[in-house]
C-alpha cells in the first residue's frame, strides 16, 4: 500500500514539474525537444499504471506484488535490456548519417528504451510466464 502511494506522489511531482517547465518556457519548442516530454510522459504513465494496479490490489486485500508480478518484471527487464543493446547499436550506426545534436540522439535512445520496456512488459503481462 505504502509503495503504491509513493509511486503516485512521485508521479504527481514529476507531472507538476514538467507542467511548470512546459508552461513557463517562453521559447518555442523544436520538434525533437518533445522527445524529453515523451520520455517523461511515458515513464509517468507507466508509473501511474503500476501504482494504480498496486493500489487496487491492496484495496482488495491482496498483496501488491506476488511471484507472478516479480517474474514478469524480471523477464521484462532482461528482454528489454537485450533489445536495447541493438537499439543503441542502431543509433551508433546512424549517428554519423544524421545531423542531430548529441543530447537529442541520447534523448531519443532513452525514449526508445522506455518504449521497449513498456512493450516488453505488456507482452509478458498478457502472454504470461510459463517457464517452458
Amino acid at each position: 500500500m505504502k509503495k503504491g502511494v509513493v509511486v503516485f506522489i512521485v508521479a504527481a511531482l514529476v507531472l507538476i514539474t514538467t507542467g511548470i517547465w512546459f508552461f513557463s518556457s517562453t521559447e518555442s519548442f523544436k520538434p525533437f525537444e518533445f522527445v524529453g516530454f515523451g520520455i517523461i510522459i511515458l515513464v509517468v504513465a507507466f508509473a501511474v499504471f503500476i501504482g494504480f494496479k498496486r493500489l487496487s490490489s491492496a484495496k482488495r486485500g491482496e498483496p501488491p506484488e506476488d511471484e507472478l508480478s516479480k517474474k514478469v518484471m524480471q523477464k521484462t527487464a532482461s528482454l528489454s535490456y537485450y533489445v536495447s543493446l541493438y537499439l543503441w547499436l542502431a543509433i551508433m550506426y546512424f549517428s554519423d548519417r544524421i545531423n542531430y545534436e548529441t543530447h537529442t540522439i541520447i534523448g531519443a535512445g532513452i525514449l526508445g528504451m522506455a518504449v521497449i520496456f513498456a512493450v516488453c512488459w505488456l507482452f509478458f503481462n498478457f502472454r504470461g510466464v510459463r517457464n517452458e
Partner: protein
Amino acid sequence: MNNRIKEYRARFNLTQEDLAKKVNVRRETIVFLEKNKYNPSLKLAHDIASVFGTRIEEIFIFE
C-alpha cells in the same frame, strides 16, 4: 503442465478472489494459472493444494 484449479475452485465454491486471498497472491495470478499461462512455484502449488486439502499432483498435471 495443466491444472484443475478451476474445477476444484467450483467444487469448493470459491471465487478467484477468495482463492487468491487464501494463498496470498493477486487475483490476476489465479487467472493466469487457470489459463495455463503461468507455472507456479512449488510453494504456491503446495499452498493451493493445501487449500483444497489434496496433493499437488491431484491439482497439477505434468505431461
